């Protein structure tokens, strides 16, 4: 159900954003815009399929806390 919703929503977004993609000023811009469009679509599908994606922020913060500990005392 989630996957279907994502495909429909993303489909609408994709076609709505195709025009600026075509009008992009150079090939580099076209490639980047296509990457972000398709990348976002793949990211959404993976998430909708229930795959657990690690949170970037939480991973970075946990890395810091595991490496350096906390500066302020706990209790």
């Amino acid at each position, binding site marked *: 159900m989630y996957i279907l919703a994502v495909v429909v929503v993303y489909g609408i977004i994709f076609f709505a954003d195709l025009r600026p993609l075509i009008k992009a000023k150079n090939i580099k811009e076209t490639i980047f815009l296509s990457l*972000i469009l398709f990348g976002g679509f793949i*990211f959404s599908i993976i998430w909708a399929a229930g795959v657990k994606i690690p949170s970037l922020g939480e991973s970075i913060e946990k890395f810091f*806390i595991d490496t350096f500990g906390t500066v*302020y005392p706990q209790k």
Partner: protein
Amino acid sequence: MIDSEKISSRVFAFSVAGVIQSSVLLTSLFIDMVRQDSWIIVLLGMFMVVPFILMYSFIMKNYPDKNLFQVLEKVFGRVIGKIISLFYLYFFFQLTSLNLNDVGSFINSALMPNTPLIIVMLITMSVIIYAVKGGISVITKYAAALVVIVVVVFLLAALLTLNIIDLKNFLPVFEYSIIKYVQGTHIVTTIPFAEIVIFLMVTPNIKIKPENIKKFFFTGILIGALTLLLVVTSSIALLGENLYLYTIPPFEMFTLINITSALSRMEILSAIAILILLFFKISILFYVTVVAISYFFNLSSYKPLARVLGIIVVIYASFIYDSMIIHTFLAANITIFIWFVFEFVFPLAIVIGTKVKNKLQKAIAPNSDTEINNEQQGTGIDNNSGKEAMAESVDNNKGKSAQSSATQQII
């Protein structure tokens, strides 16, 4: 420039105020730490943010037509500038996602407990995308109105609860260890106050005289911080020592308003005020994120990115933290240090870099002036010698022609 729209200096000041006011939801982060002394933390935070504002004003004054990424490239060079810009991209994206998650959690816990979080965030984001596609002037057009409405709502709450406040709730003062106050001040300075660093990304869009930047920055901070102080003091006066038990004290205090049957249970007013502010803050944050990505990848327009990034932000915000407990713990212990790098360390490096560059340029300028003078003098001598040489050659020619005419006469 990706977005050529301009906002006035007043709108800028109210936008700063709005961004700070929207942090009323985050008061629970430091209220839990020093409870009845939380108002002291807000006051200390107001003083601690002064050097931050001075730095941001300096950067805006020195680079009025450049956004933060362009300034980084100018000061540190292309490679280092791009690397620091990449870190800032993470910072903007993370801030947007965190605030969107806060909106979803607030609506979920206070207003619509049965609605899935993702739906709430998706609907909120749809409106934000629409606003962001309009540009910076559309987002900030009603900043003044929003800020005034919020101040009025919280003032009204304070007035309508005057009959039940207890000033003894503020006692005892300074009950906790100093480190708790330090941590609380650190939280209030980095999380709501210094987040105004985001405005460095819209410097070229602000129509402001360089000498007035500091004034409008301080005005915005003052309005925002005083509103936060009003909310915190009202919450302490009303909820007393049970304050830390509530997840959103500014929301809970409205439930206590009970003047007559007509004027009771007014928490919906608080909910509207908080939602308006968060919508405003996320709109600015999301705009900054989208514009930052467009600058980073040298795109001609930011608008095609708005919808796609909006969806990615919604999805990322849905799993940004495993639980609220982890979120609160990390925010109070780790996030404040990471944010400090973006809000203080990098801007300070820009200020130092700019000052060093200016000094070097001044030191080089007099030397180059003397070199130019010397060169000019050198060419002057050459010219003179050239003239002399020409004169000699003319004389020689004259001599030669005289000699030839004399020979002709003899012949």
